[in-house]
């Protein structure tokens, strides 16, 4: 209205040009690596321990074929290739930044180094991933509770169901229960790389994301 000579098209073109110029100065908005964290939320999560998933629960989910979660193995490639929890993806903490992980799925982290897992958990929380958990005890716990659980020689009748379930899980994942005679003192005789589990999990594998869009 103030400048009737310039048509609306030209004004819009000018606006686009100015915004383009601002973009040129701003550079890269998405590669910004700064983040803020809600310290109250993080402190709450740490003290309530509700960011942990027990290995037994995870094993149960895998056996049931649940698919609403993604397991991330943060170990190095060699350890991952040697053995990993069935269905897990191998990502390094530096790769978590790429944004490939779906935000609306549950993300479970584990590795052979629990400190690395905890640090990565914080990294993802800082990146505003809403549901990030870590597998309680990591790989060590998976080995001692799922693959090679210690089962005492004499079992109380009320514990029979519990130990049967333990044995079932153990054989599903290709491990072997350790009877109390040899548990603890000896290392399992299994070669981790030879353990195979008949998993029919529908957890998406690396490199083949779901097709979407037009």
């Amino acid at each position, binding site marked *: 209205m103030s400048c009737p000579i310039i048509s609306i098209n030209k004004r819009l073109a000018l606006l686009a040009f100015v915004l383009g110029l601002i973009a040129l100065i701003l550079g890269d908005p998405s590669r910004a690596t700064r983040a803020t964290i809600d310290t109250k939320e993080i402190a709450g999560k740490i003290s309530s321990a509700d960011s942990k998933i027990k290995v037994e629960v995870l094993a149960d989910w895998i056996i049931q074929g649940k698919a609403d979660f993604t397991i991330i193995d943060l170990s190095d490639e060699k350890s991952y290739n040697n053995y990993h929890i069935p269905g897990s993806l191998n990502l390094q903490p530096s790769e978590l930044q790429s944004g490939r992980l779906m*935000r*609306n799925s549950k993300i479970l982290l584990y590795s052979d180094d629990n400190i690395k897992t905890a640090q990565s958990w914080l990294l993802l929380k800082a990146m505003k991933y809403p549901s990030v958990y870590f597998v309680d005890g990591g790989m060590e716990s998976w080995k001692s509770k799922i693959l090679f659980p210690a089962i005492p020689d004499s079992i109380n009748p009320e514990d029979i169901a519990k130990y049967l379930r333990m044995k079932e899980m153990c054989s599903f994942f290709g491990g072997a229960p350790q009877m109390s005679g040899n548990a603890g003192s000896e290392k399992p005789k299994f070669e981790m790389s030879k353990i195979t589990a008949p998993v029919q999990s529908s957890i998406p594998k690396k490199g083949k994301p779901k097709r979407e869009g037009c």
Partner: protein
Amino acid sequence: MIAPFFKFGFFGEEMGLVFAFIIGIGFGFFLEKAGFGTAKKLAAQFYFKDMTVLKVMFTAIVTAMLGIYFLTAFGIMDLSLINVVETNLAPQIVGGLLLGFGFVIGGYCPGTSVVACSTGKIDGVLYVVGVFIGIFIFGETFPIIEGFFNATPMGRLLLPDAFGISYGILVFAVVVMALGAFAAAEWAEKKFGYKKEGTL
């Protein structure tokens, strides 16, 4: 709240479909309002007589691009979560050429053919029938062409990464390109376009 809402789990698959339906209706409505429901108008751009298609498309590209860029810059949107169709260079070049031939011959692209069909244009209806026959043939012959379909995979490829430039430079370059295209389109319309009195 941070967008995209679906990826952040603000609503589920079913709600996603409802939103897709509403947005789809809006998309179709504006295509029709822009005159994209007539093959004559669409084909006229190839003869430089009516450059509406180019102008509308470039306006949409620039608006969406600036919107996404600044929403990302203000932290309201996460650019890394926007779906990008993976690049398979060779099959996509062939596919693009095929689509171009179809566009020139039939006068519609797939989206505008649905718009024309919904307003009852016979050529639009036939075009949509053709699209479905094409989809059927593609599906039936897929095992034969699967190798080529997946050839030259380049993953999630974006221009800033491919050229090693910042998003800002790319945004500016596209804006300049669009403004240049608008100016060229106006010039072409004056030179080759329908006279004001109109022969159409």
